[in-house]
């Protein structure tokens, strides 16, 4: 019987504890709501100060002090302004803030507060190229993992500094969860600035397939034809995800010399590679691939049929004639793909 009584008493204690916890949270909310009004006011003040700076109007000492005391709000408003304002007005704003030494306040913010606030400060520091800011970003990038590290890398590239790709790759290799979208953004930026380094890693046999696919995908954004041979090699001989990513990237570069590579990829055993190759052939205007694309209209995978038909609509009257011929014949899925695409495109 004691156990039953204990249960009863314990349940009352837990209920009382939960109610007390919630009551305290309600009181805390009253206090916080009062504080929030202050934050909103501060945001409005700092936004007004920014507008003054963009118009080259002089600032009072209290206005500068207000910004310096709230680097978290400074970072937040600055990033919003940088998204909205471009050109001379933005340059004037950044130069004025730097002249007032406010990037120093951001450097302090990088090391304190909630992760969201630190991230904003790291990102905002990228707008102020200087040796001190670069050193701060490098130091925190090394010390902190996850998003702060990635953001620090992007901020360094934004300010025109170098980022050690070897270290980034090593970091990604060691941490499975790090192969994420934000990191692939960083890789794209690195591929634009340091394509040769990316190529060196793409050829490494010891890198995981997913990582190599990310590198191949990033190289498509390099806008540098020197990457073509290595990407073509990866498109033909890499693992399936690497081949698909490489063909996608080759499709973005649209170089005429790629036709034989795309032609082979159109017949690849992996449907994602075939789909990407059809898309690339249409984008690059490879008219010589019309017969192969017509064959792909009967592909067992719908996505490939769809991409092949779409590609043919891009390749001019000769390709349209092929589509009409397939549509008129009784070829099942191929005829359906051709006729629906022709109707959809009004051809």
């Amino acid at each position: 019987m004691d156990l039953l009584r204990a249960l009863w008493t314990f349940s009352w204690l837990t209920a009382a504890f939960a109610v007390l916890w919630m009551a305290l949270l309600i009181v805390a909310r009253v206090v916080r709501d009062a504080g929030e009004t202050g934050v909103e006011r501060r945001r409005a003040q700092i936004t007004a100060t920014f507008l003054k700076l963009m118009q080259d109007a002089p600032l009072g000492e209290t206005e500068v002090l207000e910004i310096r005391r709230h680097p978290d709000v400074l970072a937040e408003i600055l990033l919003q302004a940088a998204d909205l304002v471009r050109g001379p007005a933005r340059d004037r704003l950044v130069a004025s803030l730097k002249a007032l030494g406010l990037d120093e306040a951001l450097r302090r913010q990088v090391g304190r507060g909630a992760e969201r606030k630190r991230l904003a400060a790291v990102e905002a520091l990228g707008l102020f190229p200087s040796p001190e800011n670069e050193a701060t970003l490098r130091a925190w990038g090394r010390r902190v993992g996850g998003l702060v590290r990635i953001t620090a890398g992007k901020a360094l590239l934004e300010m025109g500094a170098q980022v050690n790709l070897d270290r980034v790759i090593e970091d990604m290799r060691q941490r499975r969860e790090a192969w994420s979208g934000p990191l692939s953004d960083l890789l794209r930026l690195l591929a634009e600035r340091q394509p040769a380094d990316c190529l060196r890693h793409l050829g490494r046999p010891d890198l995981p397939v997913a990582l190599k696919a990310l590198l191949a995908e990033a190289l498509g954004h390099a806008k540098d034809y020197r990457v073509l041979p290595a990407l073509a090699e990866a498109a033909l001989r890499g693992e399936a995800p690497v081949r698909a990513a490489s063909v996608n990237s080759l499709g973005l570069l649209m170089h005429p010399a790629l036709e034989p590579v795309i032609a082979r990829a159109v017949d690849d055993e992996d449907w994602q590679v075939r789909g990407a190759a059809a898309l690339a052939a249409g984008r690059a205007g490879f008219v010589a691939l019309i017969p192969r694309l017509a064959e792909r209209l009967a592909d067992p995978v719908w996505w490939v049929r769809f991409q092949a038909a779409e590609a043919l609509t891009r390749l001019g009257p000769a390709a349209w004639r092929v589509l009409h011929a397939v549509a008129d014949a009784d070829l099942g899925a191929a005829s359906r793909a051709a006729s629906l695409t022709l109707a959809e495109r009004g051809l």
Partner: protein
Amino acid sequence: MSLDPQILDAARGVTRWATLIAWFVIAVGLLQNAIYVWQLVLAERALRRRPPTLASGELWRRYADSAPPIALLAPAYNEEPTVVESVRSLLALRYPNFEIVVINDGSRDGTLRVLIEAFELKQVVRHYDLAAPCATIRGVYAAANQPRLIVVDKENGGKADALNAGLNLARAPIVCSMDADSLLEPDALLRAVRPFVEDPDRVIAVGGCVRVANGCVIDRGQVVKVGVPKNFLAALQTMEYLRAFLMARLAWSEARALTIISGAFGLFRRNAVLEVGGYSHKTVGEDMELVIKLHRHFRETRRDYRVVFAPEPVCWTEAPEDLKILGRQRARWHRGSLETFFRHRAMLFNPRYGRIGYVAFGNVLLVDVVGPLVEALGYLLLPAFWITGMLSFAFLEAFAAVSFTFGVALSVAALALEESELRRFPNALSLAVLMGAAIIENFGYRQLNNLWRLRGFWQYLTGAQGWGTMTRKGFAASPPARSVSKS
């Protein structure tokens, strides 16, 4: 005067049985509460460790470049009063690359007509897949001035059938299933897609948080001010949704055993859904059925995958304010859960399915199959045993502990968790009201809910089919800004 020993023996036997039953009822209740506590702890850990909540602008800056295209699938059946407003709100979503596929599932009212008129739709031809089984598609409509919008007119086949049609028509690698009468927050897609962006190789499905819109101020299809329902029943459901999503689903996601993604707001990899044959017909729980099929398929093919719950993206739904409609909805939900459980019963405690077979299916067995029956047994028998002197009062107290007081603790703790980590409710007063609801719901409402679940059980056993009528007031009304709640 001495009693006949035979009578004494019989009385002792009955008392022994009564004691055993009481212990069984209390043990089952205790086990359920232990699971809820475990969920609370896991949910708290998940919320504490989640990436920082980003403001809308920051979110766009960080994720827009790598966000994959999404096709929103919105099935509509007899939604004439609300469908235009709902589609307008979907068109206003902030996401870099998305298309909206509204599927008119053979509505008998003017759903298609109002859509054609409002968006100046014209019948078009579209090359689409025939991968998922669905009823005949009568036509596809598009608008010259709304390139994101596609309307599919098909013969009636039910929600699963409509979603399959949408899957066939979609061209994006990610599809988002939703109800045509739910409202997504403007940046809900960008928040929900984060797991796909951050773990593109493994994530195959993401469930978003569904919250009760009653009491909120809605303007042009968007929740502009969060509020607490004035209607008592809706306020109780606000707490229920909080527990179901913020506590239970988050915990199951953290334990990598999430088996349900709400049909009102879930994102899936299109290829993964097609691999399992799309949505299943002949079930009212097509959302749970799909997730279970995905688990089953990926476990059987030994692939690494993730089904996750994201607490930040929010979809607002209108909760029933009428007992009759709510009862029908709950019975249907329970029937759907049982249909899926028994259809995939081979997964229960089967090592091939790992934690899905042991933990997730074990939980469904305890909470959905055994739980309602045992709880009802407790309400009926334990007081009777006590009145007839077969049980001591301590048993009744222990039963009250597992059925009422622990329930109060858990409900209030779930609200405290929300306030500690997400803080979506507008002010202290709304929190106080909800705390009241969290306490009160355990006395009467919970028991009523159990009754509805038993009705769902009965419907399952008798093979009842169909959804029943689900009447909603709708978000769209003449004043531009108003509260959904009509007290």
